[in-house]
């Protein structure tokens, strides 16, 4: 560093002698200075273009689809039978299937994730925390197809031995495994929120004679509530968009059922099912991918906005 500084000092002394050379070099540099910001801006605009691309493709194809299938039939129809005549495109069975998976997943992930977050942030000794945290995060990095295999080969047999009426494909197994997948999401985001609660609040409570659980549940959790709720909403949204686990383990029967042991079909699983078959471009089935995809996109988009809003709007500032 220092020698560089000296060098440039030397150069400054010699500068008048080699003016032309320096001018040339500076001009070249100034071209870079003019061109690079534009190139970099173009890189950044790829992300905007992706969003526009998603919205435009979904909108145009969905519009085509709604020309043949009335939008009200799609949104409020209770029968989804796109491949076998009489064809019917009511999205409610797919929505209810998705909702069931998501609710089961959140019933698994939110309590476990939150309890893990409380343990890691309030109870665990530093050493334990250093080991457990990365292990939980490994869960988030495992490919979903692997979870799908786990659901089929491990969870489903257990469920079948408890409830003999359960089929090979059932919503419960897929829901539990989706839940396991999103545990780290809930736990790490909640823990981040909890560890940003200032130490002084905890110390104050301890000084008043509070026990650890009182500090955790009555001081830290309320103070970090916005972050915790946001993490739950994000996890919910992630569960809605999950594809391979439900494709493999939940089956492909669009059912409006309240029984988690039944086989169901989610929106994502339907999209995969149609694209696996060779559906010609321009048919109603092809359009239905985009209509379902649009529904999926809108729901997850709104949930993500909601999570950001909750995290910002209700944050306690200290």
């Amino acid at each position, binding site marked *: 560093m220092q020698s560089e*500084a000296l060098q440039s000092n030397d150069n400054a002394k010699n500068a008048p002698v080699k003016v032309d050379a320096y001018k040339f070099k500076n001009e070249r540099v100034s071209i*870079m*200075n003019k061109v*690079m*910001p534009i190139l*970099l*801006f173009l*890189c*950044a605009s*790829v*992300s*905007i273009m*992706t*969003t526009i691309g998603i919205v435009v493709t979904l909108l145009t194809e969905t519009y085509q689809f709604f020309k043949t299938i009335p939008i009200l039939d799609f949104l409020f129809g209770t029968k989804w039978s796109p491949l076998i005549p009489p064809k019917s495109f009511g999205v409610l069975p797919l929505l209810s299937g998705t909702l069931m998976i998501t609710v089961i997943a959140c019933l698994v992930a939110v*309590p*476990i994730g939150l*309890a*893990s977050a409380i*343990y890691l942030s309030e*109870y665990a000794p530093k050493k334990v925390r250093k080991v*457990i945290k990365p*292990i*939980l995060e490994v869960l988030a*990095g*495992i*490919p*979903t*197809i*692997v*979870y799908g*295999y*786990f659901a089929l*080969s*491990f969870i489903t047999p257990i469920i079948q031995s408890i409830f003999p009426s359960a089929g090979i494909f059932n919503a419960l197994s897929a829901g539990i495994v989706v839940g*396991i997948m999103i*545990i*780290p999401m809930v*736990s790490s985001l909640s823990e981040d929120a909890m560890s940003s609660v200032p130490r002084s609040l905890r110390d104050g409570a301890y000084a008043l004679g509070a*026990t*650890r*659980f*009182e500090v955790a549940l009555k001081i830290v959790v309320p103070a970090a509530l916005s972050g915790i709720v946001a993490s739950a909403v994000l996890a919910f*949204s992630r569960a809605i*968009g*999950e*594809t*391979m686990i439900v494709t*493999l383990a939940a089956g492909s029967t669009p059912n409006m059922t309240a029984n988690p042991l039944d086989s169901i079909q989610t929106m994502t699983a339907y999209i*995969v099912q149609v*694209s*696996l078959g060779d559906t010609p*471009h321009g048919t109603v089935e092809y359009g239905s*991918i985009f209509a379902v*995809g649009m529904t*999926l*996109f809108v729901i*997850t*988009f709104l949930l*993500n*906005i909601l999570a950001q809003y909750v995290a910002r709007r209700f944050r306690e500032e200290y």
Partner: protein
Amino acid sequence: MNIFHDANRKQIAGRRRTDWLLHILFVTATSIGVIALCALLIDILLDGVTRLQPDLFTNFPSRKADGSGMKSALVGTIYMLLIMAPVSFIFGVGAAIYLEEYAGKNRFTRIIQLNISTLAGVPSIVYGILGLALFVRLLALDKSLIAGALTMTLLVLPIIIVSAQEAIRSVPKSRRDASFALGATKWQTVSRSVMPSAIPGILTGVILAMSRAIGETAPLVMIGALTYVAYLPEGLKDSFTVVPIQVYNWLSKPQVEFQELAASGIIVLLALLLLMNFSAILLRNKYQKNV
């Protein structure tokens, strides 16, 4: 007086007991996640270890489980990574440099930033739909390697941008000031002072994004990565398959032998992921001290 005292004592003992019970409850809940991970790994290892033979790497998939391999899938995954890595690196890091070093604090920058965090939350299958409409149909790339790689590039871009931004942001301002003080221009400062110290962090992010990409199945199923490929792709426009899709293909067959093959395919996939994550951690640890 004494009565109050006793009541107090009882109350305190009760609260202590609750504390203890909840402690156990929290530990149990935390261990569920760990146990699930162990169960998953053990389950897969037990199922797949018998089929983990050289055939798996040297043979093409076939109708019979015996001697069936996933050579084409492994090669497809590697080719896809080779295309994705440079493309997503250039665009991702470019976007991050723009946002951190060049962008003014205006409405447009905020929109880009918000947009990136929203894109990170879009389900992967939606990217598959985009890839199907944009690359496969509109640009007529068909169900090709390049269409798959570009789709996955769009999918991992938000992850790369966010991690590269963090790496660039963690370069101390004093480095930039020193560079400017020596008369460097903006671009010289960015390319020769900021980037060298940010690059380990950026590479870590890129490797992690790549490891996300090799596990993704849904978007590639959407764009029609074939499930039965008995040849190696030779050009960008050749059809291809990747490891997770090969696993999916085996999983959808009812025979036990194919389920075992799927499990051994998963072992290979997980080993690949482990390798990538491990190298990312090594990279981070090696350079963290020097910054």
